[in-house]
């Protein structure tokens, strides 16, 4: 942990060396993020609800998923850009060191510009929460926290699985976007609004539904089942196969040399 924090501060200082560039990118990221929820805002000027969910409910759903994704873009950038490590042969260097390998990959890169997205996601969430009338209680607060945490966990798992995929193909193909960006795009809306097959896929294969659908139902008072409040914790089970997959891929790893 100490090692990771140290590398984070190193990357941060590195980025701040190019101050103007950092500020400009930070600002343009704010706008880029806006394009993400622009589609939701625009569609809700023409439609009143999506299968019973109102604008602010969808925005809440959206902000939870985006927060977790940006969180990983900032802090798990090394895993996101894993194919670069492999192609340049730098992964061999990491293997030589006597430290946990996932930790080292985490330390290899980070992208602080994307903090702007995390902040914006939290602002959108705040706005949504103000407009929604939520009868707060301890379980609802816990539920919200669980949703945020599980959102970070699920994308960490997906990034790891995508990285494991690089062991076999060397180059990270466009296809992996299907699972990260495509899944993310759907999970911006309450998953239940889509056709049955997709709901099942995003419940049992990639468990987005446990991140921001079932708990959302409890949070908004549409379901009284207390289990729904704790369902985000199930996402941790998704993490194990992802980690195993990564280690399995690593055993088969042959260096590309350089």
């Amino acid at each position, binding site marked *: 942990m100490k090692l990771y924090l140290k590398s984070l501060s190193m990357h941060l200082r590195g980025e701040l060396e190019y101050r103007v*560039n950092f500020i*400009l*990118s930070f*600002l*343009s990221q704010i*706008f*880029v993020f806006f*394009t993400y929820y*622009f*589609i939701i805002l*625009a*569609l809700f*000027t*023409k*439609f*009143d*609800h*999506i*299968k*019973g969910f109102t604008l602010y409910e969808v925005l809440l759903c959206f902000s939870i998923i985006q927060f977790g994704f940006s969180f990983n873009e900032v802090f798990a950038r090394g895993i996101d850009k894993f194919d670069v490590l492999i192609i340049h042969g730098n992964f061999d260097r990491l293997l030589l060191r006597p430290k946990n390998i996932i930790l080292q990959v985490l330390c290899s890169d980070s992208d602080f510009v994307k903090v702007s997205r995390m902040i914006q996601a939290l602002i959108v969430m705040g706005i949504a929460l103000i407009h929604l009338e939520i009868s707060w209680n301890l379980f609802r607060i816990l539920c919200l926290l669980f949703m945020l945490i599980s959102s970070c966990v699920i994308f960490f798992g997906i990034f790891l699985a995508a990285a494991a995929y690089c062991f076999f193909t060397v180059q990270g*193909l*466009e*296809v992996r*976007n*299907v699972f990260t*960006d*495509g899944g993310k*795009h*759907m999970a911006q*809306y309450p998953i239940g*609004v*889509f*056709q049955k097959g*997709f709901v099942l896929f995003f419940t049992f294969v990639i468990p987005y539904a446990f991140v921001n659908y079932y708990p959302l139902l409890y949070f908004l008072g549409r379901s009284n089942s207390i289990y729904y409040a704790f369902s985000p914790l199930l996402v941790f089970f998704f993490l194990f196969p992802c980690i195993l997959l990564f280690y399995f891929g690593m055993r088969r790893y042959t260096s590309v040399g350089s």
Partner: protein
Amino acid sequence: MRAYFTYFKLKFISSLQYRMAALAGIATQFFFGFVYIMVYIAFYESGSHHTPMSMAQVVTYLWLNQALLALVNQFSREEELFKIIKDGGISYELIRPKNLYFMWYFKVIGQRLANVLLRFFPLIIVTSLLPSPFHFGLPASFSHFLLFLFSLVLGTLLVTALTVFYPIVTLTTMNEKGIVNLMISIADILSGIVVPIPFFPTFLQKISSFLPFQYISDLPFQLYVGTISFEKGLFGMMIQFIWIILFLIIGNFFMNQSLKRVTVQGG
């Protein structure tokens, strides 16, 4: 003219080499087409009082978008042009006794055409065989279809003029981040690629009609599905034409200006 055409051919052929990448691209675009369409289906099934397009029209619009994305998208940046500006490769380009602007212009258009040719047909053929909510429909009428073809050609010329313009800005600033990225993300929204223009709030539709971005792909696509009348389409094509001329003039002017003071990076 012959020389420029050779540039076009060169880029075209070399882009055709990446067939595997195209295959992966097609698969991805299929998936994203489905994802986008499903969001709209969910909205339409919820019912609404005033939708600007019918669901079949939206679906056809979205498939056109996916099929022609490689041709008309405004978010892909010409990395190669940015690179030669930064690493000094531009000096080789300057030695050649041809207009640099049009050299770049034909390179970009060749690349775009090659990319789209590989992806367009499989996507359109498969999607027109799909059953109802996902079905890719026929054009609104024959005259609409003709206008669609012409305005698509104009839109391609316009988007190329626009993408060549970004590296030219980089000639003076030497850094394409910041301003160029900002312009690209504005273009991304106002092009109608994220949401078709008719779904915009009214004030944004007004603003957008004074900017070039919606005349690249939104106009031809709307002509195809028939949400724009024949007369309005003709008027729109006139505006396309004006924007193309404007960007060609501005681009050429800026390029000549900055080439007078260009610093070659590296040796």
